[in-house]
């Protein structure tokens, strides 16, 4: 089980990283989403893997899984959701502004006529 | 949460508090289903929610659909459940045992007598849930239903069955 989880986390990370490195906002956003799955599961796994022992106190239960990582992951899920929402809308607005969803751009160079003349270089 | 649109006249008090009495009842029941137990406290909360939620959402369901015969409605539900079981078995058989080439798939247009939107919806749903048919679209004027049949050698018969078995019953239930 541990191997399944670890390899899944690894795969999600790898896929996320690969997509994040693409040249358009959309795959980047997808990559970020994958990365947030990966980290959430990773963080969750810090409580180790336990079957059928949810951290809900009950007289019958013999043992519980570590509740703290779950609480942390919950916070992390919410935050990454908020972040995803913002980046999606930001990507949208950026696309609307510039008409392009490229993220592999060049700096806009200063127009040639405004450049420093030779003496300005000293 | 919701405000009554200004253009509509204020409905009577009872109507305002219980825009959908049946819904309120259903919600209270659903609450009991949800909490998976029965207690006085639970019932109270269920009642409060059952009253509050329809009231809060009444703007989104402005007109109360009238149901003429509750008994017929119940019978209709039972009929449909039975048909669903049959449908599943039929379709399962088709999927498992019939070669694809032997299927008589076809489109049919089912002219509608029903006008009530709720009724049309129920009919469309029923058609989809029962043997070999999926209701795919409504005509723009709401007078016909486009249905896809998975295996209907006789399209006319299929249309007739739909109208007789379901639509006529629904016409009795909905005014």
């Amino acid at each position: 089980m541990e191997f399944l989880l670890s390899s899944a986390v690894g795969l999600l990370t790898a896929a996320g990283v690969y997509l994040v490195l693409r040249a358009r906002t959309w795959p980047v956003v997808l990559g970020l989403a994958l990365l947030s799955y990966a980290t959430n599961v990773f963080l969750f796994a810090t409580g180790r893997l336990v079957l059928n022992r949810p951290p809900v106190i009950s007289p019958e239960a013999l043992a519980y899984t570590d509740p703290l990582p779950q609480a942390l992951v919950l916070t992390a899920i919410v935050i990454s959701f908020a972040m995803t929402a913002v980046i999606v809308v930001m990507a949208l607005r950026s696309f609307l502004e510039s008409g392009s969803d490229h993220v592999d751009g060049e700096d806009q160079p200063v127009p040639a006529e405004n450049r420093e003349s030779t003496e300005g270089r000293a | 949460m919701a405000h009554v649109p200004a253009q509509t006249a204020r409905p009577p008090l009872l109507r305002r508090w219980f825009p959908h009495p049946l819904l309120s009842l259903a919600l209270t029941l659903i609450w009991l289903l949800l909490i998976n137990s029965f207690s006085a406290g639970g019932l109270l909360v269920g009642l409060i929610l059952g009253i509050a939620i329809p009231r809060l959402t009444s703007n989104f369901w402005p007109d109360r659909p009238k149901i003429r015969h509750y008994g017929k409605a119940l019978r209709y539900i039972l009929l449909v459940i039975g048909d669903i079981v049959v449908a599943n078995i039929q379709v399962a058989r088709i999927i498992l045992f019939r070669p694809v080439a032997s299927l008589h798939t076809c489109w049919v247009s089912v002219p509608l007598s029903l006008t009530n939107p709720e009724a049309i919806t129920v009919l469309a749903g029923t058609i989809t849930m029962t043997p070999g048919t999926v209701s795919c679209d409504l005509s723009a004027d709401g007078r016909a239903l486009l249905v896809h049949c998975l295996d209907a050698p006789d399209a006319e018969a299929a249309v007739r069955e739909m109208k007789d078995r379901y639509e006529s019953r629904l016409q009795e239930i909905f005014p």
Partner: protein
Amino acid sequence: MEFINELVVAALIVVGASFALVGSWGLVKLPDLMSRLHAPTKATTLGVGGALVASMVYFLALNGTLSIHELLISLFLFLTAPLTAHFLAKAWLHSQQPKDLPQPENRNWSTFDAGSERH
């Protein structure tokens, strides 16, 4: 009695699971989307339905606890399954624009009827 209960539960589970599998198989086997649409909307509904009823019986009879909230899921599924199919069909109609559709009397199917655009 317990055996009967177990038998019922087991049977329901087996039947439900079988339907689930058949539905998914139909999804693979059937040749076009409209045909495929028939498979999951039915088979899987009954599949899940079977499992849900099994769960209710199980908790009621074998566990001694009344578990009726499964009904709610059934309700949801029964309410939504036709809608899902309806929408998938409309989406398919819109994206494929099939030519062999029967025409309704006055207006076209709403997916195509530009006249229904109210502006």
